[in-house]
């Protein structure tokens, strides 16, 4: 087990290096360099920058040098913990991202837990009570859940809450807590707001996982060992929970590998609609405003989250399934 984890950990820096190249190519993709566009923007708003300052900026980012030099300068600064300054917000990028990154992780992990907590009971009941009302209801619900884009769910719920209940359900905090430092009251406030984004984000995944579990469980329920256990007089529910469910969950566990990273990046759209203080809306704003170093840092954080998500699920998978840790160790 330990060998397996260490192996995975050793792969991390390599993967992050490749990702940093991709992120760098992405931020270089728009035509023109960002200092030029920044100067143009300043000129448009009436202020200006003197020649020396412009040259200093160009020198700092190595803008007159070839691409790989710029990349290494960027990478070195990143490794030293200096993410640079957002030209749009005039603030250090680490300050802008820090708090939002934490909320992104909290939202992602809670959605993940929610999905499994809901999908497993639904899948189990659908399979054991096949063709019952409950089963049909959730089959329909699952199809619709997969077909509805998350932002549509968010929009519809937002509209319903506004027109029927007269409340706005955007944001993660009440206004009075938005810029406060962390406290117990603020955490409680977060809990009051975060459940809705969790439900919206988790719907699609819940639908998919419940469907997989139902199909797997249906295969297991007809196996001879079930008859055997029944013949021995084992109570039905204990039997189901003890054997077939455990077997049927295994394929779900292997979906962990793609699911957690997917939630992290999928939260971007919902966060934009619901105006959540996560890194998603910030990425959108920086991309539209061509604030490329901020965009690069956020894209890299998404990659980082994806890598960590994959690592977490790999470890979980190895812990749950002995075949994997034996094979790869």
């Amino acid at each position: 087990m330990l060998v397996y984890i260490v192996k995975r950990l050793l792969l991390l820096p390599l993967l992050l290096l490749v990702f940093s190249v991709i992120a760098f190519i992405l931020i270089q993709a728009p035509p023109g360099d960002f200092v030029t566009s920044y100067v143009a923007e300043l000129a448009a708003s009436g202020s200006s920058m003197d020649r020396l300052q412009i040259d200093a900026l160009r020198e700092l980012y190595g803008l007159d040098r070839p691409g790989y030099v710029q990349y290494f300068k960027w990478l070195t600064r990143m490794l030293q913990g200096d993410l640079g300054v957002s030209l749009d917000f005039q603030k250090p990028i680490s300050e802008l991202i820090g708090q939002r990154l934490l909320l992104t992780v909290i939202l992602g992990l809670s959605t993940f837990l929610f999905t499994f907590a809901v999908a497993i009971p639904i899948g189990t009941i659908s399979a054991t009570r096949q063709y019952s009302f409950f089963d049909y209801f959730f089959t329909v619900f699952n199809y619709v859940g997969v077909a509805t884009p998350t932002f549509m769910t968010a929009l519809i719920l937002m509209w319903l809450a506004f027109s029927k209940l007269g409340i706005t359900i955007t944001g993660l905090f009440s206004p009075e807590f938005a810029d406060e430092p962390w406290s117990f009251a603020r955490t409680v406030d977060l809990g009051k707001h975060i459940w809705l984004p969790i439900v919206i984000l988790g719907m699609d995944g819940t639908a998919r996982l419940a469907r997989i579990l139902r199909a797997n469980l249906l295969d297991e329920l007809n196996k001879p060992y079930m008859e055997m256990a029944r013949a021995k007089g084992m109570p039905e529910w204990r039997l189901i929970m003890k054997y077939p469910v455990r077997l049927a969950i295994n394929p779900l566990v292997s979906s962990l590998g793609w699911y957690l990273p997917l939630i992290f990046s999928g939260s971007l759209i919902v966060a934009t609609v619901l105006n959540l203080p996560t890194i998603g809306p910030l990425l959108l704003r920086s991309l539209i405003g061509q604030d490329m170093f901020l965009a690069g840092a956020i894209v890299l954080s998404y990659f980082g989250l994806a890598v960590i998500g994959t690592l977490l699920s790999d470890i979980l998978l190895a812990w749950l399934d002995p075949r994997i840790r034996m094979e790869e160790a």
Partner: protein
Amino acid sequence: MSVELQPEAEISAVAKPDSLDKADAVSVASNWKLVWWRFRKHRLAMVSGVVLILIATIAAFPGFFSTQAPHESDSKGSFMPPQGIHFWDDGPAFFVNATKGARNPRTLRMEWVLDEGETIPLRLFGRGYEWKALGLFPTRLHLVAVANPDTDKPIHLLGTDRLGRDQWSRLVHGTQVSLSIGLLAVFLSTVIGIALGGISGYFGGLADMVIQRVVELLQSIPPIPIWLALSAALPRSWSVTTTYLAITGILALITWTSLAREVRGRFLALREEDFVVAAKLSGCSQMRIVFRHMVPTMNSHIIAAVTLAIPVMIINETFLSFLGLGLRPPAISWGVLLQEAQNLQSVALAPWLLLPGLAVIITVLALNILGDGLRDAADPYH
């Protein structure tokens, strides 16, 4: 084998073609026929197929189904409510109620309500604005039009948006763009997926190694931020068509990987099959072996996988355009239409702006069910 040896069988088969019983029919049916028989049993998938044919017809001739030119705006007629068609009014009828507007004295905004007293008669296959069928043949024919085009007020079956544009006509035109972008992107990613997956599985060795590492890398990258960054890099000055093609390319760039994996797996298995070895021994070229002998054996699987990939593409295009990074006005797609519904004020004022979302849901639902049906039908072990 000569016919004379079995005259009786020959005659009976000709005289009574129905006498082939079910087992015989199954044993002589082609693979496609078997898939079709299995697919036909899946009622819901058949219904979805019909729904999709309808949607595809709308996408092919949006002008015929619309009631007003999609870009025509009316600054005085913004946020008009949908005018539902009435089919009954003390006897069969075909009309909509007119709308009447009044300025709200407090907000000074025009507020429109349906006027139950005034009706606008409609007719099927009436005359309306001029459009070009398939971009070639000018015509004025529309499925639904006002009975007296010269005197009647314009109708808005699904209401109007912020700029007073007819929502129904725009939805119909958006269908064409959204569906075609989904199809085109899936086509591209299928071509890349089959080509690279095929090379990987057929040749193995170094090519396989490189392609598999690329696939793994692409699969470990979260696609949404990449899509956003790439689409944001598209120059704003590009024309609608160029942006359309670029977005299609961006969508296809990342999604080919899963199909490539599947194709590779099947190629690896097929490579050792007798019929492939036989083809090789009889001197077929490698291209012929791949495209003539190996690809056809997985046709049905590829079709099922492709059908299930289209809805994913449609959703992706929708959210890119919705966020303002995909297609941009004056292009019309479902995502562009939903952009109008992005803020709470518009939605609270005009909930019908959410209707394009319903189009997305219905189409994606139908494609998913159809894809599931095809997949089950294509799998002989199911």
